[in-house]
């Protein structure tokens, strides 16, 4: 136990801030925004002890806090972080004040409600990353939807209602199926442990013994995994569940897009890392080839579609599909390089895509258009802006020296290691990684995604920034204000910091990633000889077996 409950403070501070802001008079526009920035800045500072106090050598959850909540169903307030959640929480608290500052001029209509929504969202996101109890996780996970739904729907663009309802329904569809799967896991756990059990770490044990009837067999696991995976795949979003994303991004206000891209999409990948993979390792191994294929399709498809977008924001949205494909590919490798690269890529994508959306927002505020064709030659008019935009673009492409390079490189390195494992005698390949020429082809295709990424980003950059100034309106654009520079500067700092010296970030998650890989690979090995075939009928029987009937209950 810690003397100061840092983690709870970090979770609760934005909530408290939201209550304070909710009590203010709605006409006090500047005060409300200023308070929002203040709260999230304090939030960032009180999250620093999490980073400094974290012991990267320990695989255990740290900063654990445990308070009984609803004992009879095993739901408790149990939070704690490992290296992976630490990085994502730091990303969230880091971007919080930046996002809040970015709404200064952008949000005029009911700023109070907007600030309250952002603060609530912050609590929900950090809570999701920190939850160590499945019930708590689900509560925060769902709670996240409400503020985001309002942010897109109230402050969004012309088609905001369509976009936000689509976003909500897609996400809820996945979540509700996951809820049913949670029930089944819960029931199995209650039988196995003899008491209601929803602690995530204990639930990992359910997968180990495939021979024992009380544990989850492969066929049950597969169904449950699919339910969890669907919820997370929608969120990531993986091809072909991504169609809500361009709509949501294009319609959302800048701050909404930034949070959506930087943190909310990570919920999907984090969900895989925290729940879908370790809860159902054998099922993951069964479905990993499919996920690898979808990830690579996402990489290529996202890049190709991004290339032809006339709208900068939509281009960035599709680039997310491509980048998140790398993250998913990294997870499939199940080796230290690939998974570390994948987690780092989550952070990187949050930084660079977040910054890209901020930049698009800045230029939109000036011109009220996001069409590439409406720009051209901006570099001459806005030199400071150009420098920032260039750096962020290069980071998104993955130029060596920026953060994007480290993440993508590690992911591809990890993937190549698994793909070539059996050709070059590199030891056993990761559980479930598609082997042989198929795997090699996939990885080679994924690598071409890096090239495509450079193509669409640089081409967009060239059309927007260089050439003659063809539009009269563009001749007198203001360059970045001090506030805007302050918004972008910290992100730029992080881009270079991770790009030049990634060691602290990699070390923070090293042990946690190793633990995940070990859990996954050893569980799959333990259940060998794994038969990848699915026995649907067995699964249905396992799910449908009634263990109590009314006839026995009645007097």
């Amino acid at each position: 136990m810690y003397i100061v409950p840092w983690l709870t403070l970090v979770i609760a501070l934005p909530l408290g801030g939201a209550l304070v802001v909710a009590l203010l008079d709605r006409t006090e526009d500047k005060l409300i925004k200023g308070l929002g920035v203040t709260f999230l800045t304090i939030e960032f500072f009180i999250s620093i002890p999490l980073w400094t106090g974290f012991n990267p050598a320990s695989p255990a959850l740290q900063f654990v806090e445990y308070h009984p909540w609803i004992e009879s169903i095993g739901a408790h307030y149990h939070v704690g972080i490992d290296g992976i959640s630490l990085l994502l929480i730091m990303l969230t608290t880091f971007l919080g004040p930046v996002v809040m500052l970015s709404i200064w001029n952008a949000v005029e209509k009911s700023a109070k409600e907007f600030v309250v929504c952002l603060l609530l969202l912050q609590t929900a996101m950090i809570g999701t990353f920190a939850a160590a109890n499945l019930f708590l996780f689900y509560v925060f996970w769902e709670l996240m939807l409400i503020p985001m739904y309002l942010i897109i729907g109230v402050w969004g663009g012309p088609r905001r209602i369509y976009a936000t309802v689509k976003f909500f329904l897609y996400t809820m569809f996945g979540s509700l199926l996951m809820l049913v799967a949670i029930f089944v896991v819960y029931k199995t756990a209650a039988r196995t442990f003899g008491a209601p059990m929803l602690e995530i770490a204990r639930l990992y044990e359910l997968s180990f013994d495939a021979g024992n009837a009380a544990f989850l067999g492969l066929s049950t696991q597969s169904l449950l995994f699919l339910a969890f995976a669907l919820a997370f795949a929608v969120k990531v979003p993986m091809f072909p569940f991504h169609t809500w994303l361009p709509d949501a991004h294009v319609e959302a206000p800048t701050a909404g897009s930034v949070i959506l891209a930087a943190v909310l999409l990570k919920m999907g990948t984090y969900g895989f890392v925290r729940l879908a993979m370790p809860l159902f390792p054998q099922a993951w191994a069964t479905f990993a080839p499919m996920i690898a294929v979808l990830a690579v399709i996402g990489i290529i498809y996202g890049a190709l579609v991004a290339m032809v977008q006339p709208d900068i924001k939509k281009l960035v949205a599709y680039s997310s599909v491509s980048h998140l494909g790398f993250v998913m590919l990294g997870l499939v490798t199940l080796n230290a390089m690939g998974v570390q690269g994948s987690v780092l890529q989550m952070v990187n994508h949050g930084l660079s895509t977040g910054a890209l959306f901020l930049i698009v927002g800045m230029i939109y505020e000036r011109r009220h258009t996001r069409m590439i064709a409406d720009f051209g030659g901006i570099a001459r008019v806005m030199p400071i802006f150009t420098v920032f935009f260039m750096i962020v673009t290069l980071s998104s492409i993955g130029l060596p020296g920026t953060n994007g390079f480290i993440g993508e490189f590690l992911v591809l390195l990890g993937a190549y290691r698994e793909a070539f494992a059996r050709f070059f005698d590199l030891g056993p390949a990761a559980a479930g990684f598609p082997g042989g020429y198929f795997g090699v082809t996939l990885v080679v295709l994924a690598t071409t995604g890096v090239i495509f990424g450079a193509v669409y980003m640089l081409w967009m950059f060239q059309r927007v920034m260089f050439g003659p100034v063809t539009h009269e309106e563009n001749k007198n654009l203001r360059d970045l204000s001090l506030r805007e520079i302050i918004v972008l500067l910290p992100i730029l700092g992080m881009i270079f910091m991770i790009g030049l010296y990634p060691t602290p970030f990699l070390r923070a998650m090293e042990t946690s990633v190793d633990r995940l890989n070990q859990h996954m690979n050893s569980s799959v090995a333990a259940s060998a000889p794994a038969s990848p075939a699915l026995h649907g009928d067995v699964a249905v029987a396992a799910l449908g077996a009634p263990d109590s009937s009314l006839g026995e209950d009645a007097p």
Partner: protein
Amino acid sequence: MTTSLSQYRFDWVMPEIVVCAAAFLVLLTGVYSRHKRSRPIAGWLTLGGLGIAIAWTWYLRGVGGDAFFGAYRVDAFATFVKFAILIGAAITTLLSMDYWQNRAVQAPEYYALLLFATVGMMLLTGANDLMTVFLAIEIMSFSVYILVASRRDDQSATEAAMKCFMLGAFSSGVLVYGLALVYGATGTLLLKDIAAAHAAAAITEPLLFKIGMGMILVGFIFKVAGVPFHMWAPDVYQGAPAPVTGLMAVGVKAAAFAAAIRVFSVAFGAQAVDWQPVIWWVAVLTILVGNFLAITQDNLKRMLAYSSIAHAGYLLIGLTTGYKVSGSAILFYLVAYTFMNLGAFGVLTAVSRGDDELENIPQWAGIAQKHPALAAVMALCMFSLAGIPPTAGFFAKFYLFYSAIQAGDVLIVLIAVLGSLVSLYYYLRVIVVMYMQEPAGDAVFGGLSNPARVGVLASVAGILYLGLWPRGLLAWAESAIHTLF
């Protein structure tokens, strides 16, 4: 054999007696005071009566047993549901005071009927023989028929009351026919003795017995508006004054479910194989029909009517899967549903003025800008009805569905979950209209008067409290359901 008065256990039914007495007192105020002066008195007296009844019920929460020689039973189960009903009735009274004040009518008989309806519901929770069940249902139903018609000069209200009465009378007929058949087959009206007769294989006419059981089931499904006997609900909900609709959605439903649980677990527990599949199909149909038909509704009250049909479907899941597991889930759900539904009807009451109840959803466009507090309450209720954390509705659904999974029924939970997904669409629509559309025009919204404010705040507090700290009520519900066995 002589019986002394104490053997009737009048002391256990004091809450019911208090509510009854309050009803008569309210009627007297109509006689003895001038019309104008009686306005506030009737409402406050009603509240006072309900308050005393709540306190008395609390005082009696530990005791229990058979009263009136087995015809009536006081136990933790009945007490639990009575609480829900009384709190629902109290909130309804607060809303009614607002509603009638805005129409410059305060008829004492309205409050008296409200109290009589409450007595009927309370009696239904403890009814331990078939005759008491029938009497309680009739006390409740007749009061509700008149309450529905309390806007006398309104055509749609009269039509709704007529419909409610005709179909209600029909369902009562079916019910009483069923009771008669069961009585004929077993020779007893006491629920326990029916089960005993079955256990002793003393039923001479098993076919009559089963038909009677089926008819009783139909009667209950009518009362909770389950498919295919749901047709009356949308029209009646739409026509009735908003607070009465709220009372019908929560109180009548809670009482009917309590009675159904008691009758079917105590009297017909051994025949579960016969009626559980029926309820299974009814639950599935109710969930699907309620949710899908709600999508197309433009009228908020109609939408809430279909939503209440859908919620009845979720509750019926609890009946299909064995009470020990899901009985407590049903009880919890009923309380949560009381708060979230009355919150929604409270807002609806607050905004309505005169003849126009502002019940068309498009009329609500942009009210978040003019009335942020009202819109926030409505949004909270919608999120809770949709089952999104951290509201009471989420935990209630979570626990109910979980209990069904525990009983091994994954399929019905999948259906219910998909039904919930559909329901998101129409609940969210209200929020979309309130928050995301520009104010359309001339709709004039009232604010909340003080009594209604208390009622709405109580609902909000209930929604949040049960969403965040469900532990206490859950433990109570669990212990309550055990007294049935």
